[in-house]
């Protein structure tokens, strides 16, 4: 049960980022800037929390920072049609360095920041919940609420269909009078909000501190989940829980005397195994004909 609880705590930030990423993927943009966005959001959550007081201010700052980041991504990749890989990787590195500079500016340190006055996000504790579900952060429950809402929108609304239209056949969508670019921007904004919450969860609930590089590849694992699910929410969620479980198991094994460096490898190894297994079972599924991804051509670096 402890493992299950740890899995939920690990999977929550992945879930936010993967859900946001799955939608942008549906519109034809594989958002590989998640790692940088999450790190930036973690920092701004601490900044808002510390300077403005209260976890809500922290989350608001985190979401604002992540939105700005995703808008920049949209401006470059959607409006200017630059190469997503170049832009995504550059933004990841940029976020890393900007956070360092802001750390030095606001907290006069480059390593990490921790302060007792930081208010954690509230925990949901209800008497009827079993022990392993009791006292989880509101953000963990929020992730499941977001999942339910997004699943419903994805399956049952016109908006959900248009998302797929933007990715599968943008000419058809455009001739139906909907701007594919606008759909892409909308998913990027949704993604911005979700990744913002994920980042805030990491620094003001999971850890209660900011440590440089604290997103620790979570953004990338979320991207891997999106690729694992090929933009479909169901499979993406399966991927998220698989990878969350691996992270939780890695930490659990540590308490049994295994070297932390070895057990921390688990989720990364599992990502590779999962992607390979999926590809073997469903040959060609990831690059199914008809799925045009004009802005994420996998190997074209035409500039």
């Amino acid at each position: 049960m402890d493992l299950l609880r740890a899995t939920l705590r690990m999977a929550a930030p992945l879930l936010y980022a993967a859900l946001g990423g799955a939608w942008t993927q549906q519109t034809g943009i594989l958002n590989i800037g998640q790692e940088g966005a999450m790190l930036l959001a973690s920092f701004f959550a601490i900044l808002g929390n510390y300077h403005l007081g209260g976890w809500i201010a922290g989350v608001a700052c985190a979401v604002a920072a992540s939105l700005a980041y995703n808008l920049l991504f949209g401006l470059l990749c959607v409006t200017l049609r630059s190469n997503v890989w170049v832009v995504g990787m550059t933004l990841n590195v940029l976020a890393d360095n900007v956070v360092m500079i802001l750390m030095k500016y606001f907290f006069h340190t480059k390593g990490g920041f921790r302060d007792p006055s930081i208010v954690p996000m509230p925990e949901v504790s209800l008497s009827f919940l079993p022990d392993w579900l009791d006292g989880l952060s509101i953000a963990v429950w929020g992730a499941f609420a977001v999942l339910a809402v997004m699943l419903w929108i994805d399956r049952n609304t016109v908006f959900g269909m248009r998302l797929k239209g933007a990715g599968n056949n943008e000419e058809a969508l455009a001739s139906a009078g909907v701007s594919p670019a606008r759909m892409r921007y909308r998913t990027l904004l949704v993604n911005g909000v979700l990744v913002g919450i994920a980042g805030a969860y990491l620094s003001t609930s999971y850890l209660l501190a900011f440590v440089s590089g604290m997103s620790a590849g979570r953004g990338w694992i979320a991207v891997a989940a999106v690729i694992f699910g090929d933009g479909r929410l169901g499979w993406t969620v399966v991927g998220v829980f698989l990878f969350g479980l691996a992270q939780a198991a890695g930490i659990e094994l540590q308490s049994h005397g295994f070297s932390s460096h070895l057990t921390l490898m688990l989720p990364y190894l599992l990502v590779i195994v999962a992607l390979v297994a999926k590809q073997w079972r469903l040959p060609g599924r990831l690059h199914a004909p008809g799925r045009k991804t004009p802005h994420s051509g996998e190997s074209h670096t035409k500039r």
Partner: protein
Amino acid sequence: MKHSFAREHRDLIIIILSFGFSLVLGGVFIALYGADPLAAYASMIRGALGDGDAVLVTLARAVPIVLATMSIAVAFNGGMWNIGAEGQLFLGAFAAAWVGIDLGFLPGPLLTVLGLALGMGAAMFWAWMPARLSLDKGLNIVVLTIMCNSIAILFTTWLATGPYAGARANSGTTDRIAEAMRLPHFHAFGTLNWGIFIAAAAVLLVALWMIASVAGYEWRCCRMNATFAGYAGIDARSRRMQAMMASAALAGLAGALLVVGDHYRFLTTLSPGYTWTGMILAMMTADRPVAGIAAALIYAVMSSGALEMELATDIPTELVSVIVCCAVLFVTAGVAVADRLANRIRED
């Protein structure tokens, strides 16, 4: 044609303008920080090139950066998104250190050669796996190589803190490599060593390969459109694998030289992200070898001098990376806009 010069060198002009504009932007940032931009940049140049010792330190700093830039440029130029160079660098470095620790009984020159070769080999092995999965199974190489990075870095960290931890346990360093294996330093202050010539030879070789060989031409074809390259009779798969191997070899060499030439031991903090810097620089120069080398040298000067700047004006060294990242964004945006303008003019 009236604008033929501008048209022919369009990308290069965009690169230079973008870099200049980012420097100005960096200056604005410095001013916001409450310092004088010109004085800050001047302290940067002084710190990097102020006297003979400073130049040697800067050169030592340039070695891994130039190697990393070239490593990424050759991979991207061949259409292989090798984001895993950091992991390849760490594995290469550890392989070289292992030779120096466990095979220290061998004669000197052989040790050095073996260490460098094994370092490059280990890196190439670590790149071969994701490259194969990507080329033959269509898996996403970016995610694969990122995962390989984390695994390689954790693995070498485990080795350096566990089985191969040095006498100063838990500090994340191995024992020093055999005396005979070390490349001697040129001066007492810095770590510049004979490795710079090995690195220069490797970089020039790969640059020539990219510019003036059939392979280089076919790599560019694969980057533009691997499917079309296949129709044109190019063996795209093996060409792209070749690009990936060349990239990994350079990354491994960078790691091995850091061990054999600079630190004489493996450290878990060996690389402050050299290959990420290299990636940014390669992307800024659109994977052009000569421009990439130039950019890497400029970056080495800036980052070497940034320490002096941080002391003088309290502006963090990370500013240099931010400036270069902004330049990349300007270049991609600029090229995208220029492409569209060109198309529009053609259609009119």
